């Protein structure tokens, strides 16, 4: 490794040796591996397109307005739909959003701006990551113990609580990241003008970070809309509308909420093992609607994130 001057007279290496040729085992190995990874990547995309293709073919053929607005059919009955499941899903996701979004965003403000390096913030971040990894069915067990066992009935609010446990960490962690990404000079300018920390948050940080926060909210909604397992423990399923009086699909009194509530995801699960063709076709149609919705929300969220970047 001494600084020995390069021998001028050393012959230039053979040009042919430097050329990349597949006759060298090293180059051949690299070439083969490159193609192999490419092939594997394509292979992993096959399931995605297989799922989408099948949903369009099988779900699309039975999709109609009646399917979206009628009640689930009994065994051997023709027709029917999953209108009550759509209402139930929207209701429960709305409850979950109302709980998790304000809580997640305000906690994120604390983590990102008020005390980013404090011991509380570190503990909260760890707790949120633990919640991310919580199996969804255990969120259902938790809500079952907290709400169902206390109120004595399976209900939409219980389902909402279970879903909010799953949404909270997604909202919290993405909102924190979005708030942190706001340029420091904007914050400092506001402080320099005499704004209180609260004013800085409400007037500067949250409006600027809004696209990023919305991305997180949308991802969380997409996740919650597709969840099944926690609802088995909390909302169960129902063959009926939420209310007895017309229009039946709107809950009229608080009491109307406290019944088992239908959701699309549970309907797919129940009907997928059904021996009756009509119910299986409905499961496919419900899956198509569910996936279209989830992918649309997901892509919107990602588009928002890209515009910000």
């Amino acid at each position, binding site marked *: 490794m001494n600084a020995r001057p390069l021998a001028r007279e050393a012959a230039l290496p053979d040009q042919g040796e430097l050329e990349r040729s597949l006759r060298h085992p*090293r180059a051949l190995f*690299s070439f083969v*591996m*490159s193609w192999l990874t*490419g092939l594997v*990547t394509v*292979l*992993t*995309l096959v*399931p*995605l397109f297989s*799922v989408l293709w*099948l*949903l369009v073919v*099988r779900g699309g053929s039975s999709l109609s307005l009646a399917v979206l607005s009628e009640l689930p059919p009994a065994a051997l009955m023709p027709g029917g739909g999953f209108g009550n499941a759509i209402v139930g899903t929207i209701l429960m996701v709305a409850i979950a959003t109302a709980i998790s979004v304000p*809580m997640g965003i*305000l*906690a994120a403000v*604390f983590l990102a701006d*008020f005390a980013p390096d404090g011991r509380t913030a570190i503990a*909260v971040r760890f*707790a*949120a*990551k*633990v*919640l991310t*990894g*919580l*199996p969804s*069915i*255990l*969120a259902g*067990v938790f809500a079952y*113990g*907290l709400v169902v066992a206390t109120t004595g009935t399976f209900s939409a609010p219980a389902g909402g609580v279970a879903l909010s*446990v799953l949404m*909270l960490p997604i909202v919290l962690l993405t909102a924190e990241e979005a708030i942190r990404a706001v340029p420091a000079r904007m914050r400092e300018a506001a402080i*320099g*003008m*005499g704004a*209180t*920390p*609260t004013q800085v948050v409400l007037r500067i940080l949250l409006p600027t970070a809004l696209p990023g926060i919305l991305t997180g909210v949308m991802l969380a909604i997409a996740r919650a*809309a*597709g*969840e*099944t*397992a926690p609802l*088995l*423990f909390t909302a*169960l399923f129902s063959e009926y509308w939420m209310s007895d009086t017309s229009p039946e699909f709107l809950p009229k009194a608080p009491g109307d909420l406290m019944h088992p509530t239908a959701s699309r*995801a549970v309907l*797919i699960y129940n009907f*997928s*093992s059904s021996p009756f063709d009509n119910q299986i076709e409905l*499961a*496919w149609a419900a899956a198509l609607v*569910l996936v279209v919705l*989830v992918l649309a929300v*997901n892509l919107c969220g990602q588009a928002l994130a890209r515009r910000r970047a």
Partner: protein
Amino acid sequence: MRVQLAVRAHANPDDGADAAHGVAASEHGVGRAPTAREVAADRAFRSVTLALAWSVILLVVLILGEIFAQALPAMRQYGVAFLTGREWDPNRATFGILPQIYGTLYTSILGLTIATVLGLAVAIFLSEGFLAAGVFAVLKAAGLAYRPRFEALPERLEALLRIVVELLAAIPSVVYGLWGIFVVIPTIRPIAGWLHDRLGWMPWFSTPLSGPGILPASLVLAIMVLPTISAVSRDALARVPPKLREAAFGLGATRWEAILAVFIPTAATGIFGSIVLGFGRALGETMALAMLVGNSNVISASLLSPADTLAALLANSFPEAGKIEVGALMYAALVLLAITLVVNALGTWIVQRATATLEGQR
């Protein structure tokens, strides 16, 4: 906090000058001190955010406590024998979850192995710019590479591929279950039959595939875990310091020599963390397994035999369970919680440590 703000304001000479003219500026509504009401509102708002931040920690504690409380009666009644019992019979009130624990670990580990191989390949493919290089080569061959319209195409396609792989994670688990029942099982049935006929003497193929079973469940599980592994490993590979990358190529390594000897070892902790996180997801995955694993209480080494998992047991038995069985199910939920919590905390810790080390090297 107030003192801190004052210090921050004076740290910058311009701000200091502003503060000196504060009285004059206040007539225009800028640069004045906050009023008493604003200070009070500020305090209240900050306490609210602090309380909500704490409530996240509280929520985790509450979840642990709630599940533990629900499981406690059954724990007293069945004790440790619950973990080693092989029978689940609500009519005779005998409960044991050994087959479920076995099935959970079997499907998770098998699914994880498949997902690791595939996910790592995807991560390498996405992080090393293979697609962009390939598209560029094709464009160059066609003489279009430097046309303005096609210039950004390689990068765009790569970003698109990344999104598509992430969409695998967006499809709800119950839809994967449906797909597994109607596509995966019919597809692998002839292959499984052939394996059983020819290789039936091996313990892994000793039973015929009657429909649902460990193999289809693990395959679908692998697809569901793959995005987690590929996304986290891709981040780890992308964080390999550029100087290492350049040094490897400067020494004359081929692309794959550099990947295998430099990039993967450097990113190893992060990749390992991604696998542990994927393991956590696989253990807790419920619906797809409940629909595909067969839900039968057997312990078999065969890939083609039906089995059961903890989460599937919960999902399948709960809606029709009586009071005694619900107690036993809560005990099973606690076992599942304990396993996933340990695995996830471990994975999070490893990924955090790996990120910190590599950021430090930069």
